[in-house]
């Protein structure tokens, strides 16, 4: 079987259309035609992704244990209204709790949302279930309970697209925690190495130490990221010969492969929170000794309280 003329014609036609689309979007990403198409498709596919993620959420949340849910439920019961989804799994409660703690510490005003779709191929992007109807705009910072997630790159009516901070095209201006030296962190993309970012300092005199923590540092008008959001911890110094400034490996606080509840910072803090949002440093303190009272033999076998609380 050879290609008939019709097959060839259709193939060539489709390829030409595809190449034309590529060229169009490559030349001018802001062209009105493509913009309209993208907006329309975002509303359509966003709705589908809403439905799809909620269907998937039924399966994923069905195994949530209810032991800690009740306690967390009480903690976040006042915050539940902020989420459109009414039923949250146990992990989502924890994430929401952590997120609100971070938002409170930094003074960020956030819109809590859920990741409903993830990018295809090499794209490190996610879709959130909040959109322009919730006050989300392009360029706003997205964070979760651990730290910086990314920034909003496209907004539709009920969804928005977030470019993750670990995409290889994202560059984050950071400040190292105690001293406030400035540098920038570039995302690793989908490479091996556990998603470690790379930190490059701007000042040649700055000295880095393993374990120091990084927060975002706004450039101009809280763009591209609002200040004070935790980014990661320095894990390794990469002192290369010939490099002017210090280079280090940074392990991000956020696990970009397991995003759940995130918050879009719709209003930046009034003042720079500096390093207030950072988690406490894991310094070696005195070893805590837990003494368990000897159980009486006649006592009823009650489960010992978990140490999680």
């Amino acid at each position, binding site marked *: *079987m050879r*290609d008939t003329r*019709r*097959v060839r014609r*259709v*193939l060539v036609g*489709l*390829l030409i*259309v*595809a*190449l*034309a*689309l*590529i*060229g*169009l*979007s*490559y030349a001018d990403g802001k062209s009105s035609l*493509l913009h309209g*198409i*993208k907006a329309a*498709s*975002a509303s359509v*596919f*966003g709705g*589908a*992704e809403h*439905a*799809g*993620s909620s269907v*998937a959420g039924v399966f994923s949340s069905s195994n949530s244990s209810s032991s800690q849910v009740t306690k967390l439920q009480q903690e976040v019961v006042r915050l539940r209204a902020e989420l459109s989804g009414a039923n949250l799994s146990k992990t989502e409660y924890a994430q929401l709790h952590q997120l609100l703690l971070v938002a409170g510490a930094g003074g960020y005003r956030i819109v809590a949302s859920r*990741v*409903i*779709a*993830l*990018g*295809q*191929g*090499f*794209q*490190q*992007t*996610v*879709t959130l279930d909040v959109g322009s109807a919730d006050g989300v705009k392009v360029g706003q910072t997205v964070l979760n309970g651990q730290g910086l997630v990314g920034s909003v*790159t*496209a907004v*539709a009516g009920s*969804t*928005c*697209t977030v*470019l993750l901070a670990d*995409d*290889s*095209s994202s560059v984050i201006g950071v400040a190292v925690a105690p001293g406030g030296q400035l540098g920038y962190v570039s995302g690793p*993309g*989908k*490479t*091996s190495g556990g998603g470690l970012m790379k930190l490059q300092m701007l000042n040649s005199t700055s000295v880095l130490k393993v374990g120091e923590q990084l927060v975002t540092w706004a450039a101009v008008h809280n763009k591209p990221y609002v200040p004070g959001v935790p980014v990661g911890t320095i894990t390794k110094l990469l002192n290369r010969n010939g490099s002017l400034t210090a280079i280090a490996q940074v392990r991000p606080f956020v696990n970009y*492969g*397991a995003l759940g509840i995130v918050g879009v910072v719709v209003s930046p803090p009034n003042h720079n929170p500096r390093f207030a949002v950072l988690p406490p440093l894991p310094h070696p303190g005195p070893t805590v000794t837990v003494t368990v009272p000897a159980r009486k033999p006649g006592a009823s076998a009650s489960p010992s309280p978990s140490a999680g609380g």
Partner: protein
Amino acid sequence: MRKVLLAALAIAVALVAQLTVLNGLRLPGGGVPDLILVLVASIGMASGPVPGMLAGFLAGLCVDLAPPASQLVGQYALVFCLAGWAAGRLSFVAARSAVRAMIAMMVVVAAAEALAAAVGAVLEPAQVSLASIRQVLPSTVLYDVAITPFVLYLVIMASKLLAPAPEVLPASALLSPAARSGRRQHQPRLRRAAARTADGWVGGGPRSVLGGRPPARQTTRLRPADGVAGSASGLVHRPGLPASPVHLRLSTRRRRDGIIGGAALGTAGAAGLGSRSPARHPGLRARGRTFRPHHGELGGSASGQISRAYRSRPRESVPINFGAHRGDGSVGTTLARNGLVSAGGSATGSRTGGIPGAVPKVDFRVRAPATTRRQAATPRFRRKNSLLRPSAVAFSVVGGGVLEKSTFAAARRGGPTPRLRLGRRGSGMLGGSSRAGTSLRSGTARVRKEPRFGYGRKSWLSFLVQRRVGGRWLATRRAGRRSGSGSGSAMIRRRTGGAR
């Protein structure tokens, strides 16, 4: 229409599942299966290139436009379109073997993933680096290959359920024996007998109805001498024969044409046979014999087939019935005078039963087998301006390999050149020598699908180019596309099990 709707629905479901669930999986290696790509390739495999590429283009466009996408619009449309086309292009393998379909799918999917990575690396070097490609691509291909059998199975089953016509879906034939048998119903039953009487071919027996075996013709006296026209001379008269003069085609020196021993052309024709036929003729090669065209064996290519069996037999006088009408005997006369013994019989003699007084007796000094009762080579003469009918085409394909371009050309031309074309072995045409008589026994060699030595065999490249050694490719070439939707090529397609 339902197929289109179902395909659209499947793509939409796959898109949502891919974006919401599959991309969120954290699998070892960093890659995730690309369900949409596999689905597109499966659609192409099940439905052909055009549906495949359309589905691929639209699905890719959806991937490009669906919200989390930040790549350039058209990137995945390009890649998936090519993937769907390639899978459809390879869809013929699905009709043959499921394993091959899987392998073809895997090749397509792996190539498409590599192409997607390459396009991304070219268009968006900031996001797609070589390191990330090296990290993600192998595991992605691996997961794609892992889900390929399931998706392909589902797609093929769905398309089979939705499409009652199995011709549309080459792959469905894989899974539905009913569909295959349904196709075979329309296959002409091939038999060794000559054409029907009204076919324009002389020599169809009166009882030669479709599907029946040709009766042994007791009335035929076939002279098994070398070069004797296995003439239809003994045949009884049948009513309804064409009254128009029968034109013989003498010595068409084409490949696998038998050459009657036209005196002038005999040697040259033999040389032509000897130089070309052993190299190309599958039947001859299959027997492991070389055709030896020298004097006395000019009775058509079939003579080489059995000559060994008769070479040891004692010589014997063989009477030949030369036709008494219309100077038919001149053929034989010429031949006899030249010592070339491949005499064409008389067509009209066969019709009328001959006139006994006009039957010369020729003593052939060449190797002559013992006179066993043999079945006649059924002569087929073409009437002038007779159109080829499908049945005739079929028979000639099966029996004699006369399905050549010249046949069709002559049919179109209206046969300006009266020629007697001698059949190959099995063709049962007139003038195959006595050896052509065995054609009725050896019969339908080319119906069989089992490859003989080298013929119709799959080469290792056949997987990709869908050509076999000889076989269909040869037959298609010979039948020509000019026959178009005629039954000739359709029959060949059906016979050879072509997918599309």
